[in-house]
């Protein structure tokens, strides 16, 4: 959204009035709303959502804190450029459906982002409260979730308007947040959009990775259903490059491709004993539980519900895995991370929730080797203690092993969560595609176009592992780029 529009909207009558109603001083005197959360000792035994959302009054009060700034810096922090003050002011006047509509002008999955965005590093980090008042920022994420949930529960979902169909076929490869955001914009421009997904569920990581207690599947499904109503077609169990090649699809009339195939390939540490039974990648562990419902008695897929589970890593994925282990009944659910708590890449909220739920944190510890019993099942691991040295290229202090500090820890299940690499299926099937040495697809930053002119790419397959909202931002940039490319081609 351009600055002029944002300004013009801010000077609309209702916004002017609203600003006059409460003095800025009074607004800034309010304290940030707290999210209602389920009791940690109850929620760590089931898959109910931890955050319960804001009550209506709390949401309105929180909306009043927003100053409707002349220069809304918060918007700069949002990768999809949501008109934040506009939607918040709609909440203040209790036009919740209107607020949801504003969100959907730029964000296809507001109910998802309101839950999983690292707001503290994005929009909220750029809020006037954070930047100038040194106070707690407006709870933009909570409010986003509130408006989106209100709409979902109202039964009056607004379907964004779409242009006259232009009959031009476009394919999206992968149904994660990047693919969904791209599909939404393209269908709005009037294209005939088909989303191909390799798995048997639509949603990518939102479905197979992020657990129910953080992002219920029903929330994702409502948003996907909305896309369907806008005219997006979904084809499951279809691997582009395998089930059909790009050339096959070109022959079928597809004029452009958006590769949003994600960062699928799990990394391991390549240490002795790592292929023992009971050692999983976090992808496998979470997929078994989230996609295959392994923890439910009447589903066929099995999973180990270990008594003593060690999760290696400190990111969101590690937190999701360890909290899942706790919910499956682990007596000890431990995080093993080679740096200290402050360097953890996981969201602050997730770490806090994990601590409340009784997760044990073994920070400054690094696994060196696993030991298995005679059946090949992991029974213990050798750990080494670490200390922090000089900052490395990422700006975080580098972990340095302490010689002679090795010790053994019993464990019956290990989840390795040390990052992922780009899924190799697409690069394998396209010899001319330019990729980096890490296997990510090279694109032009402005348009997201790859080295093959009708193929665009975005999300984790380009960034190598990022966030939902960055993936969605890429999807939108690519849609704009693809629109221009296809229009020029068909002139």
């Amino acid at each position: 959204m351009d600055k002029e529009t944002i300004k013009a909207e801010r000077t609309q009558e209702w916004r002017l009035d609203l600003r006059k109603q409460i003095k800025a001083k009074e607004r800034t005197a309010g304290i940030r709303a707290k999210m209602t959360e389920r009791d940690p000792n109850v929620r760590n035994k089931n898959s109910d959502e931890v955050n319960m959302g804001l009550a209506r009054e709390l949401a309105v009060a929180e909306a009043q804190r927003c100053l409707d700034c002349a220069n809304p810096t918060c918007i700069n922090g949002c990768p999809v450029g949501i008109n934040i003050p506009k939607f918040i002011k709609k909440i203040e006047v209790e036009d919740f459906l209107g607020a949801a509509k504003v969100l959907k002008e730029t964000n296809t999955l507001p109910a998802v982002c309101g839950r999983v965005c690292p707001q503290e590093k994005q929009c909220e980090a750029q809020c006037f409260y954070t930047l100038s008042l040194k106070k707690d920022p407006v709870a933009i994420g909570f409010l986003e979730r509130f408006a989106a949930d209100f709409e979902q529960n109202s039964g009056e979902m607004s379907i964004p308007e779409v242009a006259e169909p232009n009959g031009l076929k476009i394919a999206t490869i992968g149904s994660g947040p990047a693919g969904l955001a791209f599909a939404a914009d393209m269908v709005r421009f009037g294209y005939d959009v088909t989303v191909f997904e390799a798995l048997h569920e639509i949603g990518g990581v939102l479905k197979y990775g992020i657990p129910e207690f953080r992002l219920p599947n029903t929330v994702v499904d409502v948003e996907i259903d909305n896309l369907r109503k806008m005219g997006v077609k979904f084809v499951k169990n279809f691997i582009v490059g395998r089930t059909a090649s790009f050339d096959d699809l070109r022959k079928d009339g597809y004029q452009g491709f958006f590769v949003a195939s994600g960062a699928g390939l799990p990394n391991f540490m390549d240490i002795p004993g790592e292929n023992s039974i009971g050692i999983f990648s976090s992808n496998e562990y979470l997929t078994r539980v989230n996609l295959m419902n392994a923890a439910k008695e009447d589903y066929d897929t099995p999973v180990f519900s270990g008594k003593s589970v060690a999760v290696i890593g400190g990111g969101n994925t590690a937190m999701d895995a360890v909290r899942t282990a706790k919910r499956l009944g682990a007596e000890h659910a431990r995080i093993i991370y080679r740096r200290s708590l402050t360097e953890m890449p996981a969201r602050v909220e997730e770490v806090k929730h994990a601590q409340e739920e009784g997760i044990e944190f073994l920070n400054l510890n690094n696994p060196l080797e696993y030991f298995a019993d005679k059946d090949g099942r992991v029974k213990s691991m050798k750990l080494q203690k670490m200390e922090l040295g000089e900052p490395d290229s990422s700006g975080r202090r580098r972990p340095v092993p302490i010689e002679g500090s090795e010790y053994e820890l019993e464990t019956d299940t290990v989840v390795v969560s040390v990052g992922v690499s780009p899924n190799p299926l697409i690069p394998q099937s396209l010899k001319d595609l330019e990729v980096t040495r890490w296997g990510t697809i090279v694109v032009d930053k402005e348009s997201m176009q790859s080295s093959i002119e009708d193929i665009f790419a975005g999300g984790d397959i380009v960034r190598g592992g990022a966030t939902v909202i960055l993936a969605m931002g890429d999807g939108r940039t690519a849609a704009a780029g693809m629109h221009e490319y296809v229009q020029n081609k068909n002139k």
Partner: protein
Amino acid sequence: MSKIIEKEFFSENVARFEIDAPEIAKSRKAGHFVIIRIDEKGERIPLTIAGSNPEKGTITLIVQKVGVSSAKLLALNEGDDILDVVGPLGKATHIDKVGTVLAAGGGVGIAPLLPIVRAFKEAGNRVITVLAARNKDLIILEEQMRKYSDEVIVMTDDGSSGRKGLVTHGMEEVIGREDVNLSVAIGPAVMMKYAALTTKKYNIETLASLNTIMVDGTGMCGACRVTVGGKTKFVCVDGPEFDAHQVDFDEMLLRLNAYKQEEVDAYERFLK
């Protein structure tokens, strides 16, 4: 959804299915497999594409009953649907004219071997096939194998068909009498292990098609990992075929038993 067009029992526990999957029928090559999920509560299981009919839009699967999912599949009939079928997965077999190919198939490994035998034959190789199983009933596809092989040797543990003995006996015999340029072994992990040890003695390049436990089949989970030449590989995207002399079969054998208890429990629940 894929409809079962035809079903035929080879024996009580082995059946052939022809299922509707037009895109896969067109794009698949020898060595590829699919992942199927029978119903909403089912697990995802890998099955080799034993053949296809692109005109009709069907693929052939040959399935042996070993546990819940395979039993559920065998209980389906013509006209029933399989909820999810995705593929073709894995790398296709590298087919070349090499001279003489010794193909060794054990039990249900005979099914995935068939398209490979056929492809090598059609590429102009001399193909000698050794089929082995516990008894006569478990020797499947003998007729089709004869069609695409210059010679077929059948070995059974109990001598109920062909000769009494193990697959490796049949292999040794062939190696003893002629020059073999390449060997392909597919079957239970133990059988592949010994087949590999046999050809290693004679320095014959050997491919094994590994049947590890899988979940997604797209390289996303790592459940299918094996050690090949000291490195961790994912069978679904790096394989399923590997240089048999480099595979750590002992590790693979252990990993195949990862869910032994869960599988037994599940099967008992299923029978109830």
